[in-house]
């Protein structure tokens, strides 16, 4: 296996890239942790509306320290604020929004993504305490389910694979993957490369990927500002 190139996007840069594809006025759910960063990079002039599983639509930035109200939190249990036009609702209504296909985009983390769109992001296997949260609902709800992830694991193993080896979160649900090296769509059961870092060759990228990367169209340079 090729060693991962030293040049790669940082997590904030991956989040920045994912944010560029969110339209003005889109309804968006960001997974807990790394995906939450995407909210920081909404392009000028666009305002997405952020949904949180625990019953908010239209939450805003974190309050300054000491200003937290712990009855105003997001699904990651972090204190948030409200933007004008926000609304509260109960958990069944919140997941009606998710499952009913009302969200435009959900952006989640991943352990593995398969070329079929299968996602594994909730369990690393039978040891430890399992916890699933809302991930299995989100992958079947949003019109577009995107993943942001390192291209390979810390041990250098591909995270984009032919078939997931870890317990699945959902079957055939992911449509786009933003990695530290590339932007890859999932179409008709295959990975379609859309963008890659200029510094990495196609062959090196392919060798870091666990399934064939297809290029039916042009592959753009993945260019992200320093952040």
């Amino acid at each position: 296996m090729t060693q991962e190139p030293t040049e790669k996007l940082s997590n904030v840069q991956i989040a920045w890239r994912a944010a560029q594809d969110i339209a003005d006025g889109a309804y968006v759910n960001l997974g807990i942790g790394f995906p939450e960063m995407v909210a920081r990079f909404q392009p000028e002039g666009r305002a997405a509306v952020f949904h949180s599983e625990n019953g908010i639509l239209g939450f805003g930035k974190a309050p300054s320290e000491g200003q937290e109200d712990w009855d105003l939190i997001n699904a990651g249990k972090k204190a948030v604020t409200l933007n004008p036009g926000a609304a509260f609702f109960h958990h069944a209504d919140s997941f009606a929004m998710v499952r009913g296909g009302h969200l435009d985009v959900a952006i989640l983390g991943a352990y593995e993504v398969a070329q079929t769109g299968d996602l594994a992001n909730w369990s690393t296997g039978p040891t430890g305490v399992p916890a699933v949260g809302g991930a299995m609902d989100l992958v079947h709800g949003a019109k577009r389910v995107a993943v942001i992830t390192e291209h390979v694991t810390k041990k250098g193993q591909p995270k984009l694979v032919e078939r997931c080896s870890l317990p699945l979160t959902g079957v055939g649900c992911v449509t786009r993957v933003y990695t530290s090296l590339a932007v890859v769509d999932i179409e008709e059961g295959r990975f379609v490369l859309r963008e890659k870092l200029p510094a990495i060759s196609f062959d090196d990228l392919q060798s870091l990927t666990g399934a064939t990367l297809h290029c039916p169209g042009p592959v753009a340079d993945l260019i992200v500002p320093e952040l």
Partner: protein
Amino acid sequence: MDKTLPSPADAVAGIADGATVMVGGFGGSGAPIELIHALIDRFLATGSPGNLTVINNNAGNGQVGIAALIAQGMVGKIICSYPRSTNSRAFIEKYQAGEIALELVPQGTLAERIRAAGAGIPAFFTPTAYGTELAEGKQIQEFEGRPYVMERWLKADVALIKAELGDRMGNLTYRMTARNFAPIMAMAAAHTIAQVSRLVAPGEIDPEAVITPGIFVDALVEVAEPAQEEALNRAEVHYP
């Protein structure tokens, strides 16, 4: 984000021939009269949209709103729980002439089927209608020794609803029992159009008081001092 449109005519301009249209309201309360009449105006001017499937609790009353839509021959099918009202002559004439189809659904099943569509639930089980002719041909399953009927979600292309306050992001409140089917229809339709009695700025509706969050609303139009179906019918108004 601004979902407001200048007029009811603009709001209903995209509704296609053959569309399935949910219409809010129960009896005389909550009917989006101005939206329905804009649809009739469009039909009179252009001959479209026709052959609509209308989903409402009733099948129109008097000679305004849904009744007027039916009288114009714009409706091919009604899905409702209670088509027989004090003055549902428009429907009854077309029905008896075989010119309109009827799918009769128990009221709670109608509400739950609509809610299920909005919530991404393709089917559910209910005790309602078990052993009756309205359950004929439906899948039956026992749970904890009791039989239940499987019912399917009910989706629509468009929902036309009437709300009280609305902001340009689509957040809505309702006025008393005018709420009825509107919040669930807003969830169940691919394109939800709300007429609101007063348009306010985002933030003016308390986030705790929002009944329909904007995510369920695609377009809204302010209709100040909207007509009330019951009042129109008591005044024996005909439309057009």
